[in-house]
């Protein structure tokens, strides 16, 4: 199985340890990743779309056209890239006139987007039944003793008429992957609440959302070993704000936030030293202890 690997910006340039974890997982699972030459930012769905929808769509279509030239479908590891590329592909499939307008611009730089490229987030691939079986089989260090909480984030699942990914209010795909690897996933009220990263104008929005989520998780009867997220923005937002809120409010919030590929890598046998688990604000010391004893 081979994909055009769309890396995006935040993970490779700011959080390369997440990319490392994913590449390790892909290699163990024998998923071939072909690098994409010349691609740009997806472009990011929050501010560029806000500034000019045409710029956002056209840059997105160029990235899709590059995959099309490679004759491969796209695999993304960031919910933002996934949202942009999937939205552009779905909207252009529905609107032939708009596609013509965009292709008129792309033609001058020798691209044509025809709509052949499909866009996948890695969760979408690995949550298919045959992959879940494979994960069960290959989990050399199953996560049997772990209680994990899942943060889906917004852009992976909504709007469902475009993302067509999972149930928009009751998603289960990440839970299925973690369960296949042996972990228990917990149910909690704020599971589907936004991380607030994209509400850029008011810092307190993100802080309040993260405080609510992490406080609930810390107060659950069963101790939660980690919160698992799949988007670099959610992952860093919750991690940093958890630390800030704990300090500001004098609360004991100490649940580490891991990116899904990191916990997958652990279960699939990647050595803990080869993952940069300490590289976050809330250190996963207890988790590491649990994994090594």
């Amino acid at each position: 199985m081979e994909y055009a690997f769309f890396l995006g910006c935040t993970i490779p340039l700011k959080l390369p340890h997440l990319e490392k974890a994913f590449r390790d997982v892909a290699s163990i699972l024998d998923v071939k990743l072909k690098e994409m030459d010349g691609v740009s930012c997806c472009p990011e769905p929050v501010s560029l779309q806000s500034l000019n929808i045409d710029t956002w769509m056209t840059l997105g279509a160029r990235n899709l056209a590059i995959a099309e030239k490679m004759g491969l479908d796209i695999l993304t590891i960031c919910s933002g890239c996934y949202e942009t590329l999937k939205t552009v592909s779905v909207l252009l499939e529905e609107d032939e006139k708009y596609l013509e307008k965009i292709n008129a611009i792309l033609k001058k730089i020798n691209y044509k987007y025809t709509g052949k490229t499909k866009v996948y987030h890695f969760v979408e691939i690995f949550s298919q039944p045959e992959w879940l079986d494979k994960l069960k089989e290959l989990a050399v260090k199953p996560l049997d003793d772990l209680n994990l909480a899942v943060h889906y984030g917004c852009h992976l699942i909504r709007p469902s008429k475009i993302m067509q990914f999972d149930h928009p209010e009751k998603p289960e795909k990440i839970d299925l992957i973690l369960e296949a690897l042996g972990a228990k996933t917990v149910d909690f009220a704020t599971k589907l609440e936004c991380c607030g990263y994209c509400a850029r104008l008011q810092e307190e929005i993100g802080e309040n959302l993260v405080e609510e989520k992490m406080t609930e998780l810390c107060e659950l009867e069963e101790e939660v070993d980690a919160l698992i997220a799949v988007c670099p923005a959610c992952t860093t937002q919750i991690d940093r704000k958890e630390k800030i809120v704990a300090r500001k409010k004098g609360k004991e919030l100490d649940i580490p936030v891991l990116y899904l590929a990191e916990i997958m890598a652990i279960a699939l046998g990647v050595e803990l030293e080869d993952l940069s688990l300490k590289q976050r604000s809330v250190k996963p010391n207890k988790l590491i202890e649990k994994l090594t004893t």
Partner: protein
Amino acid sequence: MTEMLKKNAKELDHNFRYEISEKVGAKSLLKCIQCGVCSSGCTVTEYVDLQPHRVVASCLLGLKEEVLSSQAIWTCSLCHRCTERCPKNVDYSFILALLRNMAVKEGKIPKEYSGTVVTIYDNGFVVPYTGGLKDNIDRRRNRMGLPQILPPNLDEIRYIIEETGLGDLAKKKEGDK
């Protein structure tokens, strides 16, 4: 809460609703029944000067300036629950993007949003990747055994940004008026 606004019919922009709804994806604006589902599920509903259903009502009434100057259109966290739950399939997320585009054309851009296009124009990425910053990133990746970053094709990216109308904003440097 906003204060009561009193306006004469002739002060309203009666074309505003069509200016929005003519765009594919925003036609749904005209179907709003003001049920308020969008506002009740909105992540930032306590923080905005106009809740989502009031933004839509204001668009339908023709309160163009009030909408485009509102803080509400930029405060949204883009959780997309409004669009997901609307019983009339009004795509509020998309309409909001369109309203932001219109505000940008009038020069109303919060600084938290304007820098992105400059960074992409200069780097091809939304994260700075030139000079010393690039060296640091490359070194870090190298240590982890990650492949080299393939450089984005800046000529093509800049061409698209200019051709689609963001060239001026992209070339604006800090301190420019």
